[in-house]
Each structure stands twice: as C-alpha cells, then as structure tokens.
C-alpha cells in the first residue's frame, strides 16, 4: 500500500454504508437448493440458447446453454448435477418483473462433475493467449460488478490495443454490499493470480487495485497477497459513493476521463471487478466455469446477515432461510444495493451471475438512502441544486427533472441524459424526496422507444418509397420494352421492304421501289392468271379428246 496521487470526481455522497451488518462473518457455501432456476438472459447482449431438454440428466459444470454466436452473449453451465425438469418462462430478477425463458434444474444432491470439469491450465504463462481467451469465453464469465457484460468480449477488445492501466475494482461503494470485501479478505491470493492471468494476456504497463478506505482488512489482505508483485499496486481510495462506478474509479486513480459515449479502452484502460478476476482464475487454473459467486444477504429484514457462496439460479427464499429467516422489518426485497438496486415482488425469483446482494429492509431504513421508496411525501423541486452538487457526472439533475416532467425529452437529451449512470446520488440528497433516478430511467426508456419507433417508421417509409420506385421502374421498363418492341417491329418491316426493293428493282428510291413492287406484284398476278387460263384451255382440250385406256362412264 503506497500513497499516490489521487484525483476527485465531481460530487459524490456519503449515505449510511451499513457494511458491518454483513462483513463480520466469514462467507459460507449456501448449499444446494432442491431446485435451481437458471435464466437464459443473465448478461448484457443476446440470450443464451438452451442445449438440453426437459428430462435430461446433467452434470455439474455441464454447458446447458450456449452463447448466441451472432452477438454479445455468454454460455451458461449447470451449477450442480441433476435433472432438467422444465425449460419454461419464469419471472426474472429484473426491474420489469417480466418473465423470461429459464432452465429449471432439479438437483440430485450429488453435486457430481462427471467429466465436465475443464482441463486446468496449471501453466498459463506458456499457454497461447487465444486459448486463455477461449477458456474465459467457454466458462461463461461476465462482469460481476453488476453490468454482466461478457468478459471475453471486453478482454478480446483490449488484446490488440495498447492498455496502459489495468484497473481492478474493489471499491464496493454501494451501501450494505460486502461480498467483494469478503472475497478480497478470504481469497486474495486467487484474485492476484487472476490479475496475473489478465496481465499475461493484455500486458498493461501497470495494474491498480482500487479499494475504499472503509475496508482496511481487505486492503491489508490484498496488499499482502501482492507484496512480491512489482506491477500490482493496491490503492486506498477515500470512501465516497459512487467511487466504484467505472468512470469514477478511473478518474480517481488516473485523473483521466473516459470520453462520453466511449470506452475506457479508448484511453488505454481496462477495468475489471475483483469478483470477475476471481472467476477468471477459477476458470483458467481450476477449470471451473462461472456457476457460483459470493453474494451478500443483508438488511434489517433478515436474522443473520452474511455473505454466501451461491449457486447460479438459487431462489432468494432459500438464501433468506439460510440467513436465519426474515424479521418483522422485512418490508422490501431489493436486488442489489439501496442506491442502484431494484425492488422485487417475491422471493421465489432466482439470483443470477450479476447478483451481488439481496437486501431485505424496512421502508424507513431504505428511505435513508433512496427516495424512490417513499416514506415521506414528495415535495416540489425548488431548484436548490443539491443534486447538481452531488452528481458524479456533473450533470444538472434538476434541469433534467424539469424537462422530463414537461416530457421535453429532446431538451433532456441536450442536457446529457444519456451520460447518467443512475447512481442515485441525486435522489439521496434531494430535500424534496423526489425519486429523480426513476424519472431518468423513464425518460431513457421513452427515448429508446421513440428512437425505435422512428427507426421503424423510417424503415417502413424506405420500404414504401422503394416499392413506389420499383412500381414506377417496372412501369417505365414495360413502356420502354413496348416502345422498343414497336420500334423493332417497324425496323423489321422497313428492313424487309428494303430487302424486297433491293431484289426487285436495282435502282430507285423508296417510293419507286414501292410502285415497282406493286407493279411487279400485279404482273405476277397477271402472269399467274395467264398461266392458269392456258392450263384451263389445255385441260378442256384434253377432256374433249376421248381417252382409250380410261374407263369412261359415258360408254
């Protein structure tokens, strides 16, 4: 742990952090629930496609759904052995509360790997980078900090670019959540090993691990684990929400700003969450795909808050039971933290790769950090500007709110709505208890819909215009054809006439040749007539002359 120059991002807040509730106990394996519900869409991008069917027996670690190869996607593996009982729509852990396709796995309790474990790369330093990348892709690893962006895609994007800084995100700034804290305390050596794999793959100039100063044990453990590493540095950063936002952490550690609409890679930075790095280690060194993760079960609504190693697809109700059951305070179930998480309606919903916390909490406590769960009436905005002072992006939340209320989405966009990371710092400080982030989410959704509709309309118009164009073209082509045909016919006639004229009369112009032709024709007719008349005479002569050998009836 060294002191180095740190930068500040604009704004930021200090909500009650509530970390002690869950970070005191060591993490434990949650256990194997009787049934796992595994959504096909638990990452950013295209849903994975199931490759098993109901009734199939699967082993632990068996690939049960493959990444869609058309776009960004990630594989999904069976978290334990058992039988697929159904592939059907179940409610997803998503703010919309809508169902989506899930594989339902009835576990057999044997937790049997079969031969599904991947071969460990004990010596990854002598393995092709492409092979390691393939392993990361194969193992279905996604960003575990919350975004769930497929890690292989992110890493492969950095392979042919110069990466100056690899930033490992151990900030964990969201209140209540302590799973990264426990992970860093308990598995620091594995995390460092995972970092070294990434270092080998992308060869950054330096690697910084950013950890907030409210996690001294984690800082100590990580510093100790990387003591002998020259190129890895643990950097203690001040505790301020949202320091764990990717852009914010980059600003704190390097002073650089990710260009709006761009990626950290554009300024030579790759960011990875500590838990993601740990699962890279698991996949490469242990051959274990991403089938479980550390997850915080906490809040005043639960008896014994603690971190658990949780299988992908474990129902939340199972975790609640594992943590001693609910208390009377359990009014809300939040997936994620109080600032950025979302409320779920019931606890049968499974946890997924990106789930880092299930928070059971009373409305009063929740309202301390997020006015989207109202405890007090919402009052009018008086433009006091506290939200502006708190915004880590330096946006004008009060102006955004104003324009969105007026449904002037264009103005909201010109106030950089799309830069909002929905961290909730504005709602937290708002003295009028306005759930500001809800407005921004709403507006973003509306704008997305509008753009889609516009795009559809544009395409429809394009299709229509093309249809009209095609019709016109066909008509024109038909007419041209007809005209050409007509012209050709005329030409042919003329040519024929010319040819005849040439054969009949040696000289003469067109009119002469015509007259000649008529004359010739008349002569031909005359000649024919004469010939016929002569023939007729001959015949009558012959008829009048009796024939000897003909059997005459007149006889």
């Amino acid at each position, binding site marked *: 742990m060294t002191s180095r120059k740190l930068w500040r*991002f*604009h704004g930021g807040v200090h909500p009650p952090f509530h970390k002690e509730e869950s970070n005191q106990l060591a993490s434990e394996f949650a256990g194997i629930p009787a049934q796992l519900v595994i959504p096909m869409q638990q990452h950013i991008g295209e849903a994975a496609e199931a490759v098993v069917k109901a009734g199939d027996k699967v082993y632990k670690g068996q690939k049960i759904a493959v990444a869609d190869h058309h776009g960004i996607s990630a594989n999904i593996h069976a978290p334990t052995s058992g039988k697929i009982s159904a592939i059907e729509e179940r409610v997803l852990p998503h703010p919309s509360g809508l169902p989506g396709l899930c594989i339902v796995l009835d576990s057999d309790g044997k937790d049997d790997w079969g031969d599904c474990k991947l071969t460990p790369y004990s010596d990854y330093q002598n393995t092709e980078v492409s092979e390691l990348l393939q392993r990361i892709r194969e193992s279905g690893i996604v960003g575990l900090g919350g975004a769930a962006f497929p890690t292989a895609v992110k890493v492969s994007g950095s392979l042919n670019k110069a990466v100056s800084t690899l930033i490992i995100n151990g900030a964990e700034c969201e209140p209540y959540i302590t799973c990264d804290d426990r992970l860093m305390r308990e598995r620091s050596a594995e995390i460092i090993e995972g970092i070294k794999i990434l270092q080998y793959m992308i060869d950054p100039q330096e690697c910084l691990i950013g950890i907030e100063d409210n996690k001294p044990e984690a800082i100590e453990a990580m510093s100790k684990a990387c003591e002998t590493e020259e190129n890895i540095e643990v950097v203690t950063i001040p505790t301020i929400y949202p320091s764990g936002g990717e*852009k914010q952490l980059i*600003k704190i550690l390097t002073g650089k*700003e*990710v*260009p*709006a*609409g*761009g990626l950290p890679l554009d300024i030579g930075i790759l960011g990875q969450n500590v838990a993601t790095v740990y699962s890279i280690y698991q996949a490469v060194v242990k051959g274990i795909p991403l089938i479980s993760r550390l997850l915080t079960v906490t809040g005043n609504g639960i008896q014994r808050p603690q971190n658990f190693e949780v299988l992908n697809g474990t129902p939340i109700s199972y975790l609640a039971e594992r943590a001693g059951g609910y208390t009377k305070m359990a009014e809300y179930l939040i997936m994620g933290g109080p600032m950025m998480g979302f409320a779920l309606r019931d606890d049968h919903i499974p946890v997924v790769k990106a789930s880092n916390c299930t928070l059971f909490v009373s409305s009063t406590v929740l309202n301390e950090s997020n006015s989207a769960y109202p405890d007090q*009436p919402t*009052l*009018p*905005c*008086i*433009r*006091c*500007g506290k939200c*502006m002072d708190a915004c*880590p*992006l*330096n*946006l*004008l939340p*009060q*102006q955004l709110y104003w324009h969105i209320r007026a449904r002037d989405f264009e103005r909201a966009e*010109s*106030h*950089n709505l799309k*830069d909002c990371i929905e961290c909730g710092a504005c709602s937290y400080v708002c003295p*009028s208890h306005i759930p500001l982030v809800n407005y921004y989410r709403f507006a973003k959704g509306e704008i997305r819909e509008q753009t889609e509709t516009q795009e559809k309309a544009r395409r429809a118009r394009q299709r229509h215009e093309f249809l009209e164009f095609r019709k016109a073209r066909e008509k024109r082509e038909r007419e041209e054809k007809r005209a050409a045909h007509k012209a050709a016919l005329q030409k042919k006639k003329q040519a024929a006439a010319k040819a005849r004229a040439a054969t009949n009369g040696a000289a003469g112009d067109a009119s002469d040749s015509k007259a000649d032709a008529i004359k010739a024709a008349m002569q031909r007719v005359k000649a024919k007539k004469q010939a016929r008349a002569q023939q007729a005479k001959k015949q009558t002569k012959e008829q009048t002359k009796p024939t000897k050998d003909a059997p005459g009836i007149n006889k």
Partner: protein
Amino acid sequence: MLQVLLALIPGTLVMTYFFGWGILFNIVLSVFFAVSLEALALLIRKRPVLVFLGDFSAIVTGWLFALSLPPLIPWWIVLVGIFFAIIIAKQLYGGLGYNPFNPAMVGFAVLIISFPLEMGLWLKATSFAEQSFGFIDSLRIVFGANMSPDWDAITMPTPLDAVKTGLLTGMDYTEIVRKSRYLSDSFSNTWMWSGLAFAAGGIWLLYKKIIHWQIPVALLLSLLFFSVVFHLYSPQHYASPVLHMLSGATMLGAFFIATDPVSASTTPLGKLIYGAGIGVFIYIIRVWGSYPDAMAFSVLIMNMAVPMIDYYTQPRVLGHKRKVDL
C-alpha cells in the same frame, strides 16, 4: 427555509431598533396574510395544505416582503402586495417551485408602482427608546383608526432617496452628504447598520451551505465595480461605493432575495451571470432610472433571463469536451 428565517433575525432586530414597532407589524401582517392566502389557494387547488405550509416558503416570502416596506404602512397596502406575491406570482403559476418570478419582489414592484407615495414614507431613524410612536399608536396608524400623523415631520428620505433627489436638483455629491443626517454621520446611518446585520445573516447562510456563494458574491462585486469606476470618474456626480453597498436593499437582496433558488439561475456559472446581472441593473436603475433603489426590478429582469442563462451555462459533464452543444 427555517434557517433562512433565523438568518433574517439580526437584520430584522436592527431595523426594529431604528424604526420601531412598524417593522414588526409589517412582518406579522405580511406573514399572516401570506400564510392565509397560501392556505386558501392550496385549498382551492386541492393540495395538501399542511404539507405545503410546512415548507415555510410562504413565511419567508412574507417576511422578506415586509422588510422591504416602510414602517407604519397601512395594513391594506400590505395585503395588496402579499396578494400579488402569493396568489398571482406564486400560486397561479403552480405554487412552490413553479414560479418564474420572485414572489416577494413581484409584490414589492406592484406596490412601488401603485403606491409610490406611501412606499416612500420612511420614518426618521432614532433609537428604539426615542421612537415617536409606541405600540398602541403604531397599531392605530397601521389600521387607520383616526390617526393621521404629520408625515412631513416624522419621515426622512432614505440615503438613496436623498442622493437621487439631490443630484437631480443639481447638488453635487459632497454637498448632499453634508446635508443628509444619515450620510454625514455614518454611526447614525441606520441603513448601514441594518445592511451589515443582513450581511452577517447571509454569511451565516453561506457557512451553513444553505445558499451557494456565487449569486451574492457576483452581485456585490458587480455593483462594487460599477460604483467604484463611476465614483472615481466623477466623485461629484456619482455616489460613493460605500453608499451603494450598504444602503437600500443591497445586502438583504444579495443574500436573501436574489438567492431564492426557484427563480434564480441554477448552474454554477449561471449563478455568477445572474448575480452580476442584478448588480448591473441595480446600478443602472439607481443612477439613471426613476427609482432610488432597484433590487426588485433588477431581480425580476434577471428572472426573465434565467431559462436562457441556465441552458447556455451547463457545466462540463464528465468525459465531455465542450460545455454545451450550441
């Protein structure tokens, strides 16, 4: 809002000490009218009355409005002003948060235009013990109960008034200062003392981070700049910077009126522009306009410019290069 009221107390006490019961009557009357009219409007608009009264905004508006009125002004003039402030300027626009203009200043502007005579009757400032009217007398004057004092004998032009009329009649500035009791002896210049008391309250608000620093600082600096430049250019024709800074509504306005968040600019740079704009207009109207003081008009003029200022002064967002796509 409650802290804003606390911060008004020193200035209010100083004014009461110099001008007597009239100041307190003004405050009590305006706050009473403001809260009643606000409650009435909320009832008519079917809004939760207690919730919205609980924000103290009507009290703040009433109080600030009262501080801009001369003592012993008839009660019905107070009512007319408050009616315009609360009903017309605030509730008809949708209530708290939706008013483009500062309600207290709308009320004041209506009165100074409609009742210029009554609005100019400032009592001679004396110490509280020497006040010409006691509690009962003051009450009778305010409610017009057969009590019509000889105003000429008991009122005195404010320093800004004295300077304005003096310069108009061709006197030069030093002469005006010599003749005015307020200006010749700065210790008896009640206006200066109350200005300083309001400034103290304002600094406390700054310290408490209730208000942002940009508006008061920009307002005071721009007013100071212009008053210094013109006073240096011609000390005979332009009043001293001290007079501009510590007379009239300068301090009250800079810290309490111009900082009303609803009607002021909201971006950091916008606040500087907004504050500086008010300072400029105060100077222009005081020196070349028809009114001795100009806080209300300057604030209202700049209120109009707020949407445009806010749009063009958006701060640079993280990861963006330019401030705004024009």
